[in-house]
């Protein structure tokens, strides 16, 4: 789960990391009032799940409350293109903050490093830029310090990171404290990424989080009720939102035409790849999970068919704990209750596959023996349906 900048900053403040004075607005009037309260030049930042907001035109400076109102009137409700997200996103909420007197911009982040199976603290004095770009062009400008999860972030490890990065020595003590706050927030919120970019060093030598990016582990949402309540779901795909509500693992794939339903993540991904090899384009990833019942199979078919781009559906089931007859029942229920207008190809193997095939004998589906054959058939049928 992604948090918006203003949500992440509230968390940071709770853990003692300084953030700029400011507040969020959803109307031009609110924006004017906040700017007036701040009593100085303000930055208005569109709250969307993407970096590169400045380039997209979602970050503006206002010198007066009146100007803040005008900018807000222009930005709120506007859809802009964000190159970093590769998507058009609508700005519904603005964060208005005091403009900071910037002396230097730093990058700090904590994330998980899968290779070392540890958390890693990343610090760079080349802040305010896209860190992937810095990593590519100036890898030596980035310091990475591994954190032992059993010890947490120790003072010395925080100092290691700062001095390795060439951080301003006189401020290192203060910065180490800030990093420990960042780590506490990262652990306390079950984050998989906690990034402050830039961490602003002001003319007066204060350290303030200028921007924040925050990702939460979806597996931990159950023990983070406060964070779960922050989910707005507003810029999520509506079919994905509905699938999540039904407890179905579904990812919509941009521009695809073949709906894919299978059991087990690896097998579903392989089915997607197989459809591509057969000349088609996968429209989704849908994993019915282990031991799925007929109703959840029917419900999955409904989800996949709710995508209007879908021209054919491929079921690929290799039953271990999942039973072929149960899947077949779900497909049959789907065919009788949903208005199915596209060809459906079914490949059943493993546990009770023969019983499943027998159930499907009279149904208006195409049965396939192997995954490869199933992929080729669904692509051919979808192409044929498109031409007719």
């Amino acid at each position, binding site marked *: 789960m992604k948090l918006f900048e203003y949500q992440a900053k509230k968390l940071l403040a709770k853990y003692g990391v300084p953030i700029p004075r400011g507040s969020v607005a959803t109307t031009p009037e609110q924006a004017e009032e906040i700017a007036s309260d701040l009593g100085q030049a303000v930055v208005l930042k569109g709250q969307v799940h993407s970096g590169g907001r400045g380039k997209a035109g979602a970050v503006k400076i206002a010198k007066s409350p009146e100007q803040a109102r005008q900018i807000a009137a222009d930005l709120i409700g506007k859809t802009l293109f964000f190159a970093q997200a590769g998507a058009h996103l609508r700005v519904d909420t603005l964060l208005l903050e005091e403009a900071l007197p910037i002396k230097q911009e730093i990058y700090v982040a904590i994330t998980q490093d899968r290779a070392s199976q540890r958390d890693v603290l990343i610090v760079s004095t080349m802040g305010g830029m896209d860190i992937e770009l810095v990593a590519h062009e100036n890898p030596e400008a980035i310091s990475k310090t591994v954190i032992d999860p059993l010890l947490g972030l120790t003072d010395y490890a925080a100092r290691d990171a700062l001095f390795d990065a060439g951080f301003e020595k006189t401020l290192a003590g203060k910065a180490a404290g800030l990093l420990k706050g960042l780590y506490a927030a990262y652990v306390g919120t079950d984050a998989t990424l906690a990034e402050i970019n830039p961490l602003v060093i002001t003319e007066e030598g204060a350290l303030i989080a200028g921007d924040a990016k925050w990702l939460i582990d979806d597996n931990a949402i159950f023990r983070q009720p406060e964070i779960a309540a922050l989910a707005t779901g507003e810029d999520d795909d509506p079919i994905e939102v509905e699938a999540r509500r039904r407890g179905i693992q579904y*990812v919509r794939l941009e521009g695809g035409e073949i709906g894919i339903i299978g059991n087990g993540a690896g097998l579903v991904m392989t089915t997607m790849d197989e459809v591509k090899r057969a000349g088609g384009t996968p429209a989704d990833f849908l994993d019915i999970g282990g031991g799925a019942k007929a109703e959840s199979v029917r419900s999955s078919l409904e989800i996949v068919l709710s995508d209007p781009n879908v021209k054919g559906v491929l079921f690929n089931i290799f039953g271990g704990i999942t039973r072929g007859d149960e899947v077949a029942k779900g497909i049959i229920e789907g065919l009788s209750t949903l208005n199915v207008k596209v060809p459906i190809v079914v490949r059943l193997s493993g546990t009770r596959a023969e019983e499943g095939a027998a159930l499907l004998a009279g149904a208006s589906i195409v049965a396939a023996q192997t995954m490869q054959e199933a992929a080729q058939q669904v692509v051919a049928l979808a192409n044929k349906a498109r031409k007719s």
Partner: protein
Amino acid sequence: MSILVDKNTKLIVQGITGREGEFHTRQMLDYGTNVVGGVTPGKGGQNAIDDRVPVFDTVKQARKATGANATCIFVPAKFAPDAVLEAADAGIETIICITEGIAIHEEMVFANVVKLKGLRLIGPNCPGILTVGKCKIGIMPGNIFKPGPVGLVSRSGTLTYEAVDLLTRSGLGQTTCVGVGGDPFPGTRFIDVLPLFEADPETEVVVMCGEVGGSDEEIAAEFIKTMTKPVVGFIAGLTAPPGKRMGHAGAIISGTSGSPQAKVEALKAAGVRVAETPSQIPDLVKAALRA
């Protein structure tokens, strides 16, 4: 021979009286696995699975009474981290955690604790491990396997079954099949399993099924360069878009890391015969055995 588990494995099942635990314990017993006990706090003193398996309140009690050296965990995600730590504290040598959906921060902590104690964790979010004809721990369908020279290791459950089924149908049997699981911080990775297959006299060829996300395949590729036995590989998710989690918590391409193309290239550079589709696996295995 085989790797990790065999006839001498004495297994306990944590969560044995739950729906999943009970169902799969029965299947494991049917396969011939030596299930010596189960653990469900509060149900110690009872017997489970038609009176065939004694239940204990704690792992320590179970270990003391049965001499168990392996455990299979079927405990819900919320309680699974504690179950792994309990098994580690009791000194269980091989801990297999089937549970999916464990919080990543907790997973990282227990994976490190198990390692620190010199024990082995397989999983979480995995189908388990099966040594053909001797011992099945977890949820793999035992009937698709048959004895033979192929060792398998995979991040995905059903994809492994697909591969095993294809091999068996082509007359190629297996030694041991290890499902390392689909989470970002698995206790056992490809790099931990490959040396065991390399040392196992019965395993003649290794099949490794990877997927998008992380760099475990690339790390494994470095070791494969030093192996005497041939490796056949497959990578799932060539069509997976970046930034999206594909079911498995660990199956996500982040920035430039975890891309399937990089994995395929790394494996090829290490001399791995990489299948473009699972149906090519048997022929590649046969070619590797002939070479």
